């Protein structure tokens, strides 16, 4: 299973656990399963269209990717707020 690392409010919403093991074939599938296991996460990373929110970055093994990127069992996924603001 892939290892998902969360921080900030996402960690709190996901049972206050910064690391989660999730089995999935793509980033979108992984995030949907995370929402299923932790319903409070619903709507915080993916919007209604299934698109990663504009100022959220998802990395697979350090590479910033989009929803359709493949995920392998040993991959490490980081979900981070983008460097933005005002």
């Amino acid at each position, binding site marked *: 299973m892939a290892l998902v690392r969360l921080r900030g*409010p996402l960690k709190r919403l996901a049972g206050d656990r910064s690391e989660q093991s999730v089995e999935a074939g793509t980033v979108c599938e992984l995030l949907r399963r995370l929402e299923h296991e932790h319903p*409070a996460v619903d*709507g*915080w*990373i993916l*919007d*209604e*269209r*299934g*698109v990663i*929110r504009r*100022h*959220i970055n998802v990395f697979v093994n350090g590479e910033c990717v989009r929803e359709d990127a493949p995920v392998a069992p040993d991959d490490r996924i980081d979900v981070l*707020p*983008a460097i*933005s*603001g*005002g």
Partner: protein
Amino acid sequence: MTELLVGTKKGLFVLEGEPGGELDVKARAFAGEPVEYAMRDLHTGRLVASVTSAFYGPKIWYADDPSGEWEQAAGVTLPEGGEAALERIWTIVGGEGDGDRALYAGGDPGVLFESRDGGASWELNRALWDHPTRPDWQPGGGGLCLHSIVPWPGDPDRLAMGISAAGVWLTEDGGNTWHQGNEGLVARYVPEESREETTALCIHRLHRAPRRPERMFMQFHGGVYRSDDAGESWIDIGAGLPSDFGFPLAIDPADPDSAYVIPLSADMDRVTPDGRVRVYETRDAGESWTERGDGLPQENAYLTVLRHGLDRRGEGRELELYFGTTTGEVFGSGDAGASWFAAAKHLPPVYSVRATR
């Protein structure tokens, strides 16, 4: 004691005090997050706020105590798998009268949510969402924002709404069907030959006179209007103002002929005209306007007040008015606009002001 809920670019500020001087900051919530709007549900006493995180998207939250834990409301979302995402919740409004305990929330892209449990859960109004004209709706500069929701006191079936830039929408059957009420509005920002048929009508703010509910007032994108037929048609009442461009509007509930606006110079110059901050008041339904600036900055003051930046508390001689600016000031009046004082000076850019009690 007056309570102001001030939504800002960097959180919600709860101010308390008596009119006449600076109010105290009693609480700050959602530090660092943009708070579009906050209100207190008069039926439950609960605070309900809309917050649009740049990272995590728009949410509605509720709490009994602003300094305590806020709960995320359920159901504030569009149908999954479609082509649209909820961008922002612009406003939250309570029904008027004992028979209407609903809360309504309006947002971008032109959506209405309703809550029957004091803001804990919400449901999308499908009739508006599925309206056949929706593909033709055009967003304004702030998005396709449903920003004004105007209940009819004592009749929860009748509701008016303003959408920028999709005009006025009316229901008489509790939101099961909707029709437009745009007769008389003139969109000066489109070519003359297109003005008759355009539906790109940029409503900036709507209010209803509760003692005469068929009377409504509107600040338009260039134009101030009055309706005497519950929002079906509109009469231009902007003559006599230094500019008929602006965003916020307020009324005195005791006087159906009253309205207050804060003109800005022009569409392309959205600051107070001539470097002077003035509120304009009518007490004859727009036949004439009176400048109300005593105590407001009158020199080198180029301020902007957004559409939800003006609110009132009380009525008649007890009418209090408050408005916040994008430069973080809040001004107040305890005498229906005759004189003004600084209620807060150094807040983040103010998005909304709600005077609650």
